[in-house]
């Protein structure tokens, strides 16, 4: 896993690392920036580390892209008004 250091400012979305995986917050970014930022992060991860996405909406166009690179998404509890997803490598 070669994700960036906690709270390091990124060009697209805020990233940090916690015990449950690498987090990325793409709230407030216009489309298709969240899609690109999430895929950039996912593709930079070389092992089974999960990615936790903090989004303001259901990123429907993300799922086919994730499937194409062997990842899947599952919704987990998040703050009110937030869509939080856990992305995991499946193959």
């Amino acid at each position: 896993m070669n994700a960036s250091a906690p709270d390091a400012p990124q060009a697209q979305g805020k990233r940090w690392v916690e015990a449950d995986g690498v987090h990325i917050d793409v709230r407030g970014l216009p489309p298709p920036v969240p899609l690109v930022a999430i895929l950039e992060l996912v593709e930079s991860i070389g092992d089974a580390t999960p990615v936790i996405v903090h989004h303001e909406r259901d990123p429907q166009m993300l799922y086919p892209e994730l499937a194409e690179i062997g990842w899947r998404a599952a919704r987990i509890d998040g703050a009110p008004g937030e869509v939080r997803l856990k992305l995991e490598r499946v193959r």
Partner: protein
Amino acid sequence: MKQAAGAFIAGAASRLLPPSIPFRFFGAAVAYHLLAWIALFAGAQSVPHFAGGLGWPLAALHLVTLGVLVMTAIGASLQLLPVATRQPVRSQRGPAMIWWLYTPGVAAVALGMGLPAPRLLAGGAVAVVAALGGYALLLARNLVGAKGMPVVVAHGWAALGSLVVVLATALSLACAYLGFSGFGRGMELSLHVTFAAYGFMGLLALGLSYILVPMFALSAAPDERRAWISLTLAVTALLLSAAASSGIAQQPLRMAAIGSGTVAVALHLRLMSVALKTGMRRELGRSFTLVRIAWSLLVVSLVAALGVAMDAPVSGMATLFGILLIGGWLLTFLVGILQRIMPFLASMHAAPSKRLPPTPSSLTAQRPLAIHFVCHLAALALLALAVVTGSEKVASVGALVGCVGAAAFACFFLIVLTRMSAPDLKVGRRQASAG
């Protein structure tokens, strides 16, 4: 709490229409695509010298414009705009009713033109205008509620304005075949062609490209200021062209319209080029080869438009312009995008499965697309050659090759549908709904 990502996609607040809705529009478009080439084959002897008027070439033209281009635009825009502009789907019955009115309406228009049977044509035109009026209301509601993407929304409004002109002129032209006089056939025809191809369809294509191209190339959103300038110039071009159609300073206004349109297109293509060059995904395959060819032919269509405006002494210039504009730009662009959108949407709809949803690439059959690619481009080249040489035989061969390409595209579509509804996917869906 942990739930499969797709489970909440399928919820009441979903921005996705049920797959049966966009796919019924795409399915009808695929069928009309094949019928268009068959109609062109039936009227191949008139193609080299086609200058309008009832008959199978006119039927083929409208099977492409209404049957393929507009049919797909309805399905794609009703599905993509709510997703892109962050709003729930408000009506499922509305799009379904539009399909039931529009699809037989297009068939009646095409048959009425081909046979010819003016009453059938007029009846079909009424159904098509009513259906497109309903679509215009749905599109307007989507645009009013849109959040974000203002430049895409503005393209939608400009396309909607163009649609009003197209519908008004279409009704008037159809009524002329029943003996009613309108504002003059030349003016109506000029407005109809320009606002249908460059206005309604063209602006929808340019606007949706600001969503689709960065999405497929995985690039940043195009520069919004330049996109606004491109749209302003495109709308200016349409207004100048409308003024020219009224008969005042016809040639200078037409040339100014073409100039404005050319700069608009150049700016748009520059933005698309940047998106493709800077995107994470550089290899976009055959579909984007078609899109790139379509963009080139859009530029060539403007050169041909200049030739028509200046009365260039080239035999069949107006027909050549029509082939470049409708076949070369719009149809080529559409089949390029459609072969990417259909598996992508199919995969999005498959996401409710708790298992890994099928990938867009696993839903795509490459062989039929390879056959279509070659046949589509060869057919267009042969049609252009037929017009330049005045050869009916070359037109027949071109139409036949087009039929083979369209049949291959239909195979691709059926394979997407079959793979989308494969049993393992159904099992996954049942598991998702039980979970």
